[in-house]
Structures are given as structure tokens and as C-alpha cells.
């Protein structure tokens, strides 16, 4: 079927391995993503906290620089689990906004343009399609979350020495697991909303609503019932608890409240967070629901029964 021959000929060359075909989607999609100058600018901004983090780690180990700036090493934030947890949380926030910008149109655009039959009439399954679409986000989010955080960890280990690296290896695993859980959650949420709601704006609005409205509702419930158990319905709080658990800073008592009764007797009420296992279970349940919805919506054709 050469251009000049103008005839139909079958393809007889080699084929790519089946396992790698889902990566075709992110390869083509990422090219389009960075065509937007606005998004590229935002994506660059996402690296600023990492720059600050790198500078802080560097300053800790550069006495000359500290002397020039009239700073004492003790005055700087210590480089430990809490330090990395703080920056992991900041990058998690940026990851949310990247997912909000990129996630919603990924599936909805295909549904709106009836493109799914074109994908699924090929040796390409629904699972591969979802994996391909999710990996667009997973790749983008990895580059601003766990990948640079691990590099920071290695940077700190390089400056501090092997003993520090060995004794703090758990920080690396916390960065890795926390980062992957968060970006997986964001990718699943945005893909599900994208598949359910065919319009990008509506899907983006729904994603914002699904994250912020339960958080606000949870705070109201917490205030009324003097607890922190309602955090179980807030994605940010759930993820915060899980990350704290991974970095070893989780405490079930996250607040105290002075309550006076009719006899003006003041008692202190402990505000308890849900146990860690509850937070993990809630996240798993959330992911399972998202997967079920994706399996229901991602089809070549909707069947009207």
C-alpha cells in the first residue's frame, strides 16, 4: 500500500509485544498534554517546593553557606521523617491539581467522540485501555511526587553518609508507598468521573466536589459529635492518616476539646481519628468502587436493555 502504488496490501512485518501496547496511549497523550503552555508552566511550578527541599538539604551540610547566611545548623528544620512527610504532603497537593487538569478529559473525550469501538475492535482489551489512560496520569504524577522525593532521599543519603541511608531506609519505603497510593487514588478517581460524566468541565467540578464537599461535611459531623471519626469520608484526611502512619507520626488522638456540662463541670474530650486499618480499608473500598464503575462504563457500546 505504498503512497505511489495506491493499492491495498496486507501488513507482513513484525508486531509489537502485546504486553507493551497499553503504553502507546500515554506516549501519544503526553505529547498533547505538553502542547498546552499553561499546563507546562503549572507543571514547572510543581517543582519549586522540591527546589526548596533540595536547598534545605544542601544547607544542612554546607557550613560555609550557613556561615555566609549567619545561620546555625540547629536553627534549620531537622532532616528526618517529618521533613520528608511535609514535602510529600505538599507535592500531594500539587498532584491533585495536575490530576484535576489532565484526568477528566482522558476518557470523557473518547466517550463523547465514540472512539471506544475504535480502540476495542483491535487486539486491545478494556483493561489495557484503562491501564493506558491511567498511566498518562501515573507518569505525570510520579514525576512530581515519589520519584523526586526518592531522589531527595538519595541526595540526603549522599551528603549524610551510608549509615544514615541504612537507618532511614523506612523513609524511602514510606515515600514510595505513600506516593503510589495517592497517585493511584487520584488516577482512579479522575478516570472514573471522566467515564461517568462525558463533559470535561462537569467531571472536573465533580472531582473537586467529591474531594472537598465530604471534607467540609466531615468537619461539621466532627464538630457536632466531638470526634474525628468523620474523617473516614474525607479523602484528604484519609490519605493524611495513611501517610502519617507510613512516616510513623500517626496519633489517634488528634485533638482535645474542653466541654462543660449543665453543672459547669469542665471535662476534656479526646478527639479520636479512625484507626489506621480503617483508613486503609476505606481507601481500598473507594478504589474498588471506582474500578467497578470503570468496568461498567468503559465499553465499546452502551446496550439499551
Amino acid at each position: 500500500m505504498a503512497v505511489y502504488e495506491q493499492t491495498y496490501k496486507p501488513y507482513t512485518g513484525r508486531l509489537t509485544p502485546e504486553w507493551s501496547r497499553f503504553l502507546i496511549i500515554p506516549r501519544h497523550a503526553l505529547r498533547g498534554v505538553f502542547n498546552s503552555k499553561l499546563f507546562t508552566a503549572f507543571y514547572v511550578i510543581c517543582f519549586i517546593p522540591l527546589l526548596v527541599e533540595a536547598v534545605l538539604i544542601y544547607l544542612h551540610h554546607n557550613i560555609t553557606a550557613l556561615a555566609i547566611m549567619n545561620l546555625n545548623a540547629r536553627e534549620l528544620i531537622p532532616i528526618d521523617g517529618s521533613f520528608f512527610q511535609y514535602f510529600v504532603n505538599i507535592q500531594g497537593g500539587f498532584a491533585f491539581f495536575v490530576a484535576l487538569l489532565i484526568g477528566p478529559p482522558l476518557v470523557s473525550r473518547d466517550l463523547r467522540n465514540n472512539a471506544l469501538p475504535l480502540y476495542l475492535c483491535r487486539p486491545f482489551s478494556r483493561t489495557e485501555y484503562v491501564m493506558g489512560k491511567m498511566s498518562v496520569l501515573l507518569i505525570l504524577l510520579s514525576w512530581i511526587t515519589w520519584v523526586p522525593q526518592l531522589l531527595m532521599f538519595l541526595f540526603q543519603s549522599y551528603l549524610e553518609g551510608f549509615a544514615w541511608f541504612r537507618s532511614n531506609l523506612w523513609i524511602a519505603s514510606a515515600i514510595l508507598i505513600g506516593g503510589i497510593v495517592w497517585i493511584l487514588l487520584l488516577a482512579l478517581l479522575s478516570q472514573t468521573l471522566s467515564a461517568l460524566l462525558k463533559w470535561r468541565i462537569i467531571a472536573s467540578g465533580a472531582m473537586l466536589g467529591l474531594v472537598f464537599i465530604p471534607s467540609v461535611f466531615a468537619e461539621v459531623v466532627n464538630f457536632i459529635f466531638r470526634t474525628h471519626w468523620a474523617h473516614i469520608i474525607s479523602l484528604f484526611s484519609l490519605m493524611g492518616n495513611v501517610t502519617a502512619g507510613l512516616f510513623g507520626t500517626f496519633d489517634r488522638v488528634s485533638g482535645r476539646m474542653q466541654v462543660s456540662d449543665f453543672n459547669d463541670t469542665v471535662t476534656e474530650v479526646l478527639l479520636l481519628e479512625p484507626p489506621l486499618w480503617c483508613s486503609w480499608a476505606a481507601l481500598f473500598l473507594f478504589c474498588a468502587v471506582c474500578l467497578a464503575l470503570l468496568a461498567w462504563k468503559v465499553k465499546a457500546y452502551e446496550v439499551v436493555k
Partner: protein
Amino acid sequence: MALPASVPEEPIKPQMAHVEPPVIDLHGLSVSFGQRQILKNLRGDLRGKAIGLLGPNGAGKTTLIHTLLGFHPPSAGTAQIFGFDIADQAKQIRELIGYMPERDSFIAKMSAVHFVRLMGELSGLPSEAALERAHEALFYVGLGEARYRRLETYSLGMKQLAKLAQAIVHGPKLIFLDEPTNGLDPPARLRMIKLIREIRDSGHAHIVLSSHLLLDVEECCDEILILRDGQIAVYCNLEEERKSNRKFLMLETRGDQEKFIKALAKLGCEYALSGDHRLKIVLQEGIEVRDLYRLADEEQVQLRRLSYKRDSLEDIFLKAMENGYGGL
């Protein structure tokens, strides 16, 4: 005419000898959406180079194509494409087929060449080969000059051609074309028909063409499968069907018809009365029309009208709609 209560159990086959394995083999294929049965116990082996899928709206044409593509699971029975089962070997089948959907289908914010290349890669072609074939396919369908334009800016006819390009980019052995001429103006339709015929004549691919436009099917297909209410009403070889009716004549006479009929029988013609003074005759080999004039002259019968009647696809279709299932 009342429809028969049950469909035939034996596969319906066109009346010709075949050696090659069937392109599509239907084994009691049934498909239901909830309580609604869309396809009912379809049986038959389809072997043509270009098979026309005909039927009124809602007959199940598109559902049959979607089921063969693996989009809908069969509720009973199964089917095979080139010997691969649609239930168990969908992936192998999809490597061999191309599909041009009926509805507007494309990927937004992409140029045609990017779109067709992506489709080629998803079919398993390496990136460079997919790009090369995307250019070739777009030139082949006549979109060479517009291949860098975004698909959203294409006219309906151009979108149809882009859909055809994505269906053939990987050089499939079987191409499903669902209403490929829908919404096309006459020149664009002619171009599409020409392309389909070229692909058919290349000998490298079989075509299943679903259409409600009889003329399209007549121009492109050598076999037809007519569906009615989810059942096979007719499956036949169009060319053979035409050949068998080559010497089918309609006569209108005045005079002693009895004598004329006896003379016709003596001549060896098959005949049937179709009303007062009207006859249907199938001429046997070696008998020409001039023999009929001679006979009429001998029997003192006037031939008021004589016309060749050949079953067009429209006749076959209409008969299928009247007759029910199983054949002509």
C-alpha cells in the same frame, strides 16, 4: 405471508462449491439484550469475498457485526471467524480484522495522520511502520492532501474516508464496514464504492458490508445475507442468483394460449401462468427468443409484450421480506 414458527436447523449455504474454509461460521448464534432477543439462532457459513449484510432497520445487522467483534457476548451458540471462536479467541480475531463503525468515531484533537498512526500502533504495528502505513492509507483513500488537518475540521465525507483509513491501516484480512456510504454525497459515495471494490478485487481482504442501501451492496458484494427480525431470511451468491435467472421471460399473449403452451412444452420450456394471457417462461439452453416468435406465428398467437426479467437485489430483498426464512 405468515412467518414459520421455527428457523431452519441446517446451515444455509449458497449454491456453489467451496474449498476454502469459511470467513464467518455461525453456529446457532443468538444475542439478547435483557429480555429482548436481537439475534435468533443464526446458522451458516459465509465465504464470499464481499458479503453484503442487508435488512430493514432493527433487523440485527449492526448487532451481528458487534457480536462478531466481541462487543456483545452471545446468549447462545457461537461463531467463528477464520476458524477462531469469537468467545475464546477474540484477540486473535481482532488481529485479523478492521472495523469501520457506522457512527462518527474519532479521537479528538488529532490530525488524521496521527489518528491513523495511533490506530495502527494499537493493532500491533511498530511506531515507524504505523506512521508509514498511516500516510499510505490516507493517500489510498484520497485524504493525502488533508492528512495533517485535525479530524474535527473534516467534512462528513472526509470523516468516512478517515474511518476507512483506520480500518485498513494494519492490512486486515477481514474488514467490517458498517453503513460506509451514510450521509455521503453522490461523488463521495462513488469514491467510497470504488475503494471498497478495489479492496475486494485486491484479493487480500474479505469485506462484510452492512448497508440498507441495496445499490451499494449490489455494486460491491458477491454474496448477500439478509436479516429479518434477527433471523437469516436469505443467504445467497448474488452472481449465481442472477445467472440462474438469466433467461427468465415475461410474456403477454392474445389468441389460443392452450395451443401455445403445449407448443412451448414440446419445445422444452418451463412455464408458469401468471394471470390471464400472461406467462412466465424459463428458456432452456439452445432456445432463443426468435424460436418463441416462430412458435407464436405457427400457433397464430399474438405476442403483445415480451420482456426479460432478471431478479434484481431489490426483488431478492423484497421476496425475503415476504417469504420468511431459509432461502429464495
